């Protein structure tokens, strides 16, 4: 059993489990599944700076912070106790493309060749980690949600705005990955 759990999980196992988070959160406390809001609650609790968008009773949303802290712990448990010792299998086409940028270490979920503390202070690392993170935080709040809130929760509730947002996420991702990221990686 434990050997089975240690294998990477197939999409048809993981997808439905992620989908079940929607009814689980609704039933245990009437919460709509969403993760990016946690970033807003951090702003509201640490640095509201009199900005109306952050002036609300964030303590009523503290469940969301418990939830994301759980995701952090879950990541630690999975990697330390349930992890698969083999490198991540990558599509040969992607592996060939990445090798051209000097990315050959597929041992971790994050490409250590480019995302590490040393490269943080290079232009490439700054763009990948700092600018990338900024776009994630700014974009999700501007869009009113992320993959969880819009693509999964919103679509589950048949919301047209969430479909529009999800399509926009994908268009943005395709443009970046295929047209812009190659320049960043070749820096």
């Amino acid at each position, binding site marked *: 059993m434990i050997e089975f759990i240690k294998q*990477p999980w197939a*999409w048809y*196992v993981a*997808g*439905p*489990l*992620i989908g*079940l988070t*929607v009814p689980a*959160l609704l039933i*245990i406390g*009437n919460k*709509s599944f*969403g993760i*990016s809001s946690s970033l807003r609650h951090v702003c509201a609790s640490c640095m509201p*700076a009199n*900005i109306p968008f952050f002036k609300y*009773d964030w303590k009523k*949303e503290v469940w969301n912070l*418990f939830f*994301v*802290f*759980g*995701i*952090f712990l879950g*990541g*630690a*448990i*999975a*990697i330390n106790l349930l992890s698969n010792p083999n490198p991540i299998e990558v599509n040969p086409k*992607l592996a060939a493309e990445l090798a051209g940028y000097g990315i050959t270490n597929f041992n971790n*979920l*994050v490409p250590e060749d480019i995302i590490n503390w040393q490269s943080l202070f290079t232009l490439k690392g700054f763009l990948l980690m*700092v*600018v*990338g*993170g*900024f776009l*994630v*935080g*700014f*974009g*999700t709040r*501007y*869009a*009113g*949600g992320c*993959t969880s*809130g*819009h693509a999964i929760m919103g679509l*589950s*509730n048949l919301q047209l*705005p969430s479909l529009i*947002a999800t399509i*926009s*996420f994908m*268009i*943005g991702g395709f*443009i970046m990955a*295929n047209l812009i990221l190659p320049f960043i990686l070749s820096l």
Partner: protein
Amino acid sequence: MQQNTDIEKDLQLRELDAMCVNKSHLQHKWYHNLKYLVVGILFGIVFVKAEVVSWFRIQEMFRLQSFHMYGIIGSAVVVGMISVFLIKKFNIKTIYGEPIKISPKTFNKGQIYGGLIFGFGWAITGACPGPLFAQIGTGATVIGITLLSAVAGTWVYGYLREKLPH
């Protein structure tokens, strides 16, 4: 009465572009939040075991080189849809006996502009907000910087909100 309007105003503000609003009118002790911690842990384990938090999987997705992520998001949405349908059809209540409420979303142009911006960030970092937390858990401590930067991005959005087209 005044107090009621204040509570209503606070709820509206929290609802504003937020996905998660506590609809419950019940007051609970803090340890009731531990159940969300447990759901988060299970969710984080799935994220890592299915490699949803892998930068490589996201690159494959945006290059149409793998079905994996499409299968995960697609099947998650189908299961979510069926669940929400059943909850509404059978008026399923929460464990505290409250009726389940899901607030509808209203369209604004932010979903397009913000969506595109988030898409850019998703393809660069290989992570949406959830996976950032899980990646840090897997020992990629430098992602903590990415997370702080995402908090900064959220803050700057709040600061510029009135001036941005919606």
